[in-house]
């Protein structure tokens, strides 16, 4: 089947190249996009120029990038691969790696032919006289009695679907909250509250942390201790000082009558 014939029963986007720049939602992956581009060459897919196709694809991807369209990774992977293929095809023969770029190009061509053939077959299949759309059976047949006893009906699909549902249903839905190594706020308030009494001069916040903690507990202890310090400051039990953003934070016990700097 020639590309021309196919264009007739395919939607119009294949015939209008400018549509290609609109949206990537049209394509089911890079192979699909390549096939659309290939059809625009308006030749039999067996005669398609893979080199020309590669250039078109790369130009297209480049255009999409300039429009700042989000490109799914597989489109970019294909672009990288095609760029490689293109440069290999242009290399002098002696320097060609194995498998040869010609074979890689031929493979791509064969894949496109196969996808095209199935797309075409699918369209022809869907266009057949389908029951319920083009031809009709009796809507209310009286029915025949086949056997005297109940005939139990179930399909393999029913069976595996039932099993899937049991498995899905009977998994106990247990939400386990992982016990993470944290220092609670209460702990921190107690600890900082107790220690700050001993620190009459400005002391760095980090000095109030228990020694030898590992991550991630150390981070939790730091965070909790900072919040504890804010709380204790609010209660008037200590003062906080910081010289600037990201500078060390200092604490000291609040002395009644002494104002924080």
């Amino acid at each position, binding site marked *: 089947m020639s590309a021309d014939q196919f264009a007739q029963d395919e939607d119009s986007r294949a015939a209008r190249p400018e549509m290609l720049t609109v949206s990537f939602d049209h394509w089911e992956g890079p192979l699909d996009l390549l096939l659309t581009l290939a059809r625009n060459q308006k030749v039999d897919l067996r005669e398609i120029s893979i080199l020309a196709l590669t250039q078109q694809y790369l130009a297209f991807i480049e255009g999409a990038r300039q429009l700042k369209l989000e490109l799914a990774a597989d489109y970019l992977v294909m672009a990288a691969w095609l760029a490689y293929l293109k440069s290999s095809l242009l290399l002098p023969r002696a320097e060609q790696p194995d498998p040869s770029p010609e074979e890689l190009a031929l493979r791509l061509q064969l894949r496109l032919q196969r996808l095209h053939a199935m797309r075409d077959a699918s369209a022809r299949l869907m266009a057949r006289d389908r029951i319920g759309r083009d031809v009709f059976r009796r809507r209310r047949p009286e029915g025949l009695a086949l056997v005297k006893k109940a005939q*139990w009906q179930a399909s393999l699909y029913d069976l595996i679907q039932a099993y899937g549902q049991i498995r899905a249903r009977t998994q106990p839905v247990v939400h386990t909250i992982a016990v993470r190594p944290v220092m609670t706020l209460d702990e921190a308030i107690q600890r900082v509250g107790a220690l700050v009494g001993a620190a009459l001069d400005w002391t760095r916040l980090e000095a109030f942390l228990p020694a030898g903690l590992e991550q991630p507990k150390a981070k939790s202890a730091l965070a909790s201790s900072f919040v504890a310090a804010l709380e204790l400051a609010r209660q008037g039990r200590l003062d906080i000082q910081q010289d600037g953003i990201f500078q060390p934070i200092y604490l000291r016990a609040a002395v009644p009558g002494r104002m924080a700097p």
Partner: protein
Amino acid sequence: MNSEPDDYMRAIEAALFVAEAPMSPAELKLHVGDGDMAAALASLADAYAGRGVNLVERGGRWHFQTAPDLAHILRREKDEPRKLSRAAMETLAIIAYHEPVSRAEIEAIRGVQVAKGTLDVLMEAGWVRPAGRREVPGRPLIYATSVDFLSHFGLSSRRDLPGLEDLRAAGLLDPVDLALEAMGGQSVLENDEEEA
């Protein structure tokens, strides 16, 4: 039915064939448009006379029906093809995937009690058979699937049943996190009243 029917007659024939109830000429006209309805119906009725299916008029409405003398062939029984209940389907699935299993094991997997009639239905259908007893206290009866089961479901062996991976891939296992699978089935003992 000696003359080739024209398209108008063919349209009437098809419309009456798919109709859910007998149709009056006025109703038919809505489908097939204008034409000599009376003549077409008479000609159709004539064509079908003497066949296994006849076109008849009752109280101004037309319909196809089987010839009266063939009633003995088509006699309808009270019994009809029946769909397995959800409970039976699940029980069958568990037996197929886990055989041989005892009733208690089926209940443990399903998370619901298995009503008495469920296994009976499956055995009556010929898909499940008793497969001896388990040599544990109480010696419970265990169940397995039959050869009829395989042939009904078009399987050459139980190994052809899709595995969990396949079920998942087909989207049949969706709502649950299977990482928890190893934790085992916890029972939600509701009763299967619908199947009793």
